[in-house]
């Protein structure tokens, strides 16, 4: 197999970089001379994004007692890093709108992704980690490589889907045999071009085999377990039809008891429908 993940991205301009708006927000947040007020102004320039962010902030995702009416207030209450993570998740979801739907149902794809993001955020909260929105975004993006495979290698991707179905084999394993690499490697190559924090690349690459994550084993482990939880909840799928095997060391690394699973599933269930609706209001009802 001659194809490499990078080859599929050459000339694929629609996905080769993040929306300009995201990089502007990013620059504003990274610039120490920018005040909270300046950052709010930059976000407010994109009215669609601002509206989506406000809807998320006012949803069960946070459950604030009073309504947050403006972006500047959202920046104060939620925080800039957190708002940036949410902006990234919703920007990416809206970036892939044009992908042909014959291989994957996009609604189902994002349902699984958002469920994974919510589960990852919930696990991180239970551990007492900070900036849990980052985990949400990592979870939303974990299977993003599949969208590239579906649109750039539709024939091979279909072969993989059919083989996984008829042979009862895990899809990411079949992908390696049919395509030569799995959706994790594909997704890692994609996000590498987006100049995101290094943790994204590693988590996306190794969420199915967290043993490979050397620099961000904890982030990878949390998304690995969140992916399994999302499968167990059966809210949607990105192509995989079976519960992926649990990597024992990843579970041990997270260090939470089994009793965390039931409340996590409850919590994800409560937040799920509102969150998906607000992040992606046009196509997913």
């Amino acid at each position, binding site marked *: 197999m001659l194809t490499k993940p990078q080859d599929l991205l050459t000339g694929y301009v629609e996905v080769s970089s993040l929306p300009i708006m995201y990089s502007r927000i990013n620059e504003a947040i990274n610039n120490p001379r920018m005040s909270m007020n300046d950052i709010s102004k930059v976000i407010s320039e994109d009215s669609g994004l601002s509206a989506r962010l406000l809807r998320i902030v006012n949803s069960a995702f946070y459950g604030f007692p009073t309504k947050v009416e403006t972006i500047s207030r959202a920046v104060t209450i939620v925080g800039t890093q957190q708002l940036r993570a949410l902006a990234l998740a919703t920007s990416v979801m809206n970036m892939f709108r044009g992908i042909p739907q014959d291989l994957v149902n996009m609604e189902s794809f994002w349902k699984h992704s958002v469920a994974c993001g919510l589960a990852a955020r919930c696990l991180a909260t239970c551990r007492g980690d900070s900036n849990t929105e980052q985990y949400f975004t990592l979870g939303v993006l974990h299977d993003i490589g599949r969208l590239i495979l579906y649109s750039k290698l539709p024939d091979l991707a279909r072969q993989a889907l059919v083989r996984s179905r008829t042979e009862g084999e895990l899809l990411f394993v079949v992908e390696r045999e049919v395509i030569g690499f799995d959706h994790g490697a594909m997704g890692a190559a994609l996000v590498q071009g987006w100049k995101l924090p290094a943790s994204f690349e590693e988590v996306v690459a190794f969420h199915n085999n967290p043993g490979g994550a050397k620099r961000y084993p904890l982030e990878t482990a949390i998304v690995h*377990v969140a992916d399994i939880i999302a499968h167990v909840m059966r809210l949607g799928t990105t192509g995989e039809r079976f519960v992926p095997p649990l990597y024992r060391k990843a579970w041990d690394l997270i260090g939470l008891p089994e*009793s965390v699973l039931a409340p996590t599933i409850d919590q994800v269930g409560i937040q799920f429908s509102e969150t998906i609706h607000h992040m992606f209001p046009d196509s997913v009802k």
Partner: protein
Amino acid sequence: MGSLNLDDIQPGMTLADDVKDKSGRILLTAGQKVTDKHLKIFKMWGILEADITDNKDDGAPKVEPEIDPLPNGEVQKEADEFFRHTDLDHPAVKEMYRLCIARIVRKSGGVAHAD
């Protein structure tokens, strides 16, 4: 009785050990009877389990072991197929399998309607 999941703790049960939050702050001390309000507060602070005494003469309602919805053949076959690549000996996977069956049964409107 040992450690119970928060969902299985009933008001009136007695704590065998202090309940502490993530930072080690004590929320309720050993020997206290748990009330509805305590359970709500535990939930707010992310408490997942607590140690309950075996003491049965304190009027606490006896805890029935959680009754799993009895999966009928169809549901179990579906779940077994779904989990075929996992190691069901792992306690976390076992718990997810249980929760998954409960969700399937609930979705299909209970065991009675599942077939």
